[in-house]
């Protein structure tokens, strides 16, 4: 299964869409499928400064709690309020309506180590590690 183009990916299965100096972050379809039914998402606060690869929240499925890592650092601009009432949006539309937060990017240097769709697909095809 091809991964959506126009996005960057982390090894922790987050995606990042860059629009100027703003990034939108979510978890990948592979990640939501591995987690199963998502029942709660804990996101960073708006205005919070986050560091690349830092543990900044949790995603909880029926069975398990998983840490949420951020693929980029910066200042959190907005979180997806729709997830408070309907966390399963992440299951239904991981790359769209199920986005997690927007961040003002700390810089573009951090983007260099993220994966392109082909490299992420290789990671996923390899069992996700």
């Amino acid at each position, binding site marked *: 299964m091809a991964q959506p183009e126009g996005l960057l990916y982390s090894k922790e299965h987050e995606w990042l869409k860059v629009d100027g100096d703003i990034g939108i972050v979510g978890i990948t379809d592979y990640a939501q499928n591995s987690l*199963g*039914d998502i*029942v*709660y998402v*804990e996101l960073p606060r708006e205005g919070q400064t986050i560091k690349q690869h830092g543990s900044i929240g*949790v995603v*909880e499925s*029926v*069975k398990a*709690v998983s840490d949420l890592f951020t693929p980029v650092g910066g200042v959190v601009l907005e979180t997806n309020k729709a997830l*408070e009432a309907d*966390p399963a949006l992440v*299951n239904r539309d991981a790359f769209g309506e199920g986005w997690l937060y927007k961040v003002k990017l700390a810089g573009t240097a951090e983007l260099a180590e993220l994966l392109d769709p082909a490299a992420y697909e290789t990671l996923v095809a390899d069992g996700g590690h």
Partner: protein
Amino acid sequence: MSTFEGAALRRTALYDEHVALGGRMVPFGGFEMPVQYAGILKEHDAVRRRAGIFDLSHMAQYELRGEGVAAWADSLTVNHVATMKPLQARYNIFTNPRGGAHDDVLFYRLPDRWLLVVNAGNATKMWPYLQDAASGRDDVRLESHHGSRALIAVQGPRAVEIVAPLCDVDAAALAYYFCAEGRVDGVPAVIARTGYTGEDGFELFVEGADAPRLWRTLLERGAAYGLEPAGLGARDVLRLEAGMPLYGFELTEDISPLAGGQGWAVKLAKPDFVGKAPLLAQKEADDYDRIVGLVLEGRVPARGGYAVFSGGERVGEIKSASIAPAYGNKNVATALVKKDAAAVGTPLDVEIRGTLHGAHVVPLPFYKRGT
């Protein structure tokens, strides 16, 4: 005897069926078992509204024969065995000398033998324990069919329509917690109206070799009724909603049947049985920590092991927890708490990642069918 600690995982007779259905296989009780197929909540919904089919072949099936079985089993367990009627099934708990739960089980009384089903994860201790307890007796003979016999459960309000027409006995007329010997789809089976989901349903004990075809027949026949394969994940949510304990959580060697909320099954009027004296003392003192139902007020789920507080004082810990679709989609849990914190309505706090979240004690079960 069956061992699995450190040994390779075993597969049930239905392993290939699970893989073909997209089941996500995980280690459980020494076997590779499906934790989910289409998704835990979808499978839960199928069982509550229509029907689900489960592979429970990892559970250990023992056959007990001999004149002495009833009295022998009565001496090892908290519930009555000898008073069981022919073809009756009954929940029971083996206790240790301290009154803790050694395993929770089901007995089935068949015309010429008894069927005993124990938790897969406890089979490595239960089989030697039972053999030891029966040694030197010629009136109790044990035979393990763990892994060779399969167990298929069909659970849900439509289960009877799916299963009964395949049986050569009147399965629809079976009362809850009764069973029959007969054939299902032509193969010999013990057909039991039992289950662990809080729904009506059947458990079908068949030879492993007969299981894959029966599984496929049930799925094909059940499709018209909305039957779906359901895994251990859905089963755990279903049993938690129904207030049924899971060994290792609500019942352990240190959590007695009384503390675990299974006092209804403890018959202290029985002649002596393992652990009776400590259970009597526990009941009289009535000061023990006990399992309660909790409902959390927020959307943050609790998890097993989280600490429970009352007015800043730690009073216990969460044992099982889940979102409960049959309880208003609220986050529910069982917790082992001090007696003073156990009354229905008591406000408690659950510590989740360093923050206290409000909860209160509610009666168990969270879900009763027909309500």
